[in-house]
């Protein structure tokens, strides 16, 4: 009878320890706990200026089957998103908020909050770039959402590019000898600065 009690206690202890080793996510019945697959995002919240882009990456200790990653968005009008492997490219489309949800094999594993805000100062170039050929001229205009004070100040990082300006309007002239390349340009107004690129050579 004592042996029977002892066997019952040992059996009960084995069951308790077996159950203790289980985790809700991995299911029961395993003798050794499976390692947890941690999947996170490089950012949990992104604030984008309308028209600007950013990238968020899915991070995992293990190699991910990227085909099983699926993104969805609560408001397609606010943000444009594009999955490229573990990377998620984002572009602000309109002022507002959107929640992006990441699912793997149908199971939700992460969310990303995206706020799109209006920039105080922008240049009317949606991609923040202007592509010009040698000897050409183009007009660009800055757009400030607030009436500020002082002058618009335009600058460019290349001697071969002339910027004449009149307030928010700038005339960009590329000399015939300007080398092909990508140059930074800025406009500053009322304490705000907007940077854009002038790309020479199609």
């Amino acid at each position, binding site marked *: 009878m004592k042996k029977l009690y002892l066997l019952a206690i040992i059996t009960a202890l084995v069951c308790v320890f077996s159950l203790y080793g289980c985790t809700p996510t991995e299911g029961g019945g395993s003798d050794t706990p499976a390692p947890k697959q941690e999947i996170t995002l490089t950012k949990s919240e992104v604030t984008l200026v309308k028209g600007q882009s950013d990238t968020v990456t899915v991070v995992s200790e293990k190699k991910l089957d990227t085909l099983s990653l699926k993104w969805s968005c609560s408001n*397609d*009008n606010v943000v*444009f998103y*594009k999955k490229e492997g573990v990377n998620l490219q984002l572009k602000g*489309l*309109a002022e507002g908020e959107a929640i992006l949800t990441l699912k793997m094999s149908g199971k939700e594993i992460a969310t990303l909050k995206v706020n799109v805000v209006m920039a105080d100062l922008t240049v*009317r*170039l*949606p*991609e923040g*770039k*202007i*592509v*010009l*050929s040698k000897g*050409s001229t*183009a*007009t*660009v*205009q800055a757009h400030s959402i607030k009436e500020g004070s002082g002058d618009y100040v335009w600058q460019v990082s290349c001697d071969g590019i002339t910027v004449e300006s*009149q307030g928010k*309007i700038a*005339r960009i002239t590329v000399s015939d000898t300007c080398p092909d390349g990508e140059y930074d340009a800025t406009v500053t107004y009322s304490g705000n600065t907007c940077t854009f690129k002038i*790309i020479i050579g*199609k």
Partner: protein
Amino acid sequence: MKKNIIALFLILAIIFIPSVTLTANARSVFSQYTTARTLTSGLNLQPTAVLEPENYSDIPSGSQVQSSGITSVLVTPNSDMDVEFKDKTVSFTDLFDAKLRRLFIPVLRLTAETVEPFIQMLKNTYYIADIVVLSSDVKVLDAIRKDSVATVANSVYDLTDVTLLSDRYTNWQYIAEANKVYANTVMFNGSEENFPVAAEYLSAMCKVCWAKTNSLTETVSAIASGATGVVVKNADYFKDAMAYFSKKGFAKAQNVAAHRGITSYANENSLTAVSSAISEGATHAEIDIQFTHDKNIVISHDSTVNRTTGVNASIEPTTVSHLKTFTLKDYSAKYEEAIPTLEEVIDAVSDTDLILIIELKLEDGRTQVVNKGAIEKFLEIMRAHPEMDGKWFCITFFRPYADKMRELAPEISVGFLGAGASGYENDQGIRTWDGEWTGMSNISSKIAFMHKFRMVLDETYTSELNTTAQDYLARGYLQNSWTFNNLNHFNSKLNIATSNVAEQCSMLIKEFTPTEYQITSQELASGKLKVMTENYCGWRVERTCDVITVSKEGNKVQILLYYNETAGSVSYGLYSQLMTYEII
């Protein structure tokens, strides 16, 4: 006896058959039309001169007809269709036969009481077809529109009793009302302070704008403000006014549309192309729309993305999110731009004064796209953006879209993308107009066609347009045209020039914006004055302008300014509005 009966039949046949034929023709085609009259002047496009005579004897006759410059005569018949002048009462048909026929285009002011008698009169007078009606009552104009027999050349919406506001877009309501009843012309009081705002905006939206004036100075002012027609009580007002516009140029800056946006340094139909149209100072941007599989609207000229992205895919069976994965290729390495949606374009332009000319490409006129709700979706998007009200209109090659737009959005102008007076129907070989476009080689049949389909003109440019523009204008059709690769449109009688090089207009004068209204006696005597001006892109430049004195009283002088510059290989001149200066 038998011979006599046969002869009688022959005589009767000779008398009646042509009449029956003419009756049939007259209702569908203006077989006889009156040539619009112009005076010698430097204006590229002269306003139509409309005389509203108080006396029967005021109507020019004989040698005065040509020298008056008057094209149309406005009269107000009573319900018996009699016209009561101060010096005479005469039936309209007698007036027509005696004074107007083949000399002037009759313009009849109608009311709720006179519209039915007028329609009856038209039905009984097959030969009066080239005629314009005018009313301040939209129900009257609608009755004309609805009556299939009462074909008129055009209708004028009389709004001379409204007070015009300084906000450009408050005028949209008038255009919308006029479009619903297919009145291509709107008439305002030319003495209204904000008439120039209305005149500029109406032309940008394809509407002919008449100014009713009461003096020579008002007539000069209206013409200099961009009126495309003037209604005068005295024929001399028009003749004398035109004498002040002897230098070659425009009374108001020509509208310039960037074709598919600015394409010299951006991908066609891209967001950058549209944004650049704003920066470069284009007045309009022309874009093309297509319908996607998930029932959205994107911007693309072609129904496939093969040419623009290098990926072989049709737009109609593809979703927006899939299309967004393709990159526009011309500047792809640099811009990384995708095909924009209509929503994105609206977002880029809605806070500006750029007007969108939206071409309904939509699978090149395939009826099934209409049946899938493409036009409904397009209108749903546009109507979800009230900030775009009055900032867009449509153009198309294709009848299914024109018909659908007329049904669902009669307030929107739709331009017929014809291919010149003797051109072809469309560039896709789809004969959607039931062959009715044929025979449009003359003005009368083209006006009948435009009237039937309730469209406005937007045709490929041929030199013929310069000889026909005044005739179309007199009947309510401004001539919009495409597509220019240089600045030759500044030499043409156009309203909106759609250009592949709109950015070349960027630094040309668009407006005179003096900061002070004082002139010295010496400057007045020399006929030269330095004033601040504004270019198409908004850049301000001080220019030395010619001074044209219109009137002088005490130390006040009313002047027009004129500036001429060379644009490419063409000479481009512009007049200012009539301005009052103090002589110091």
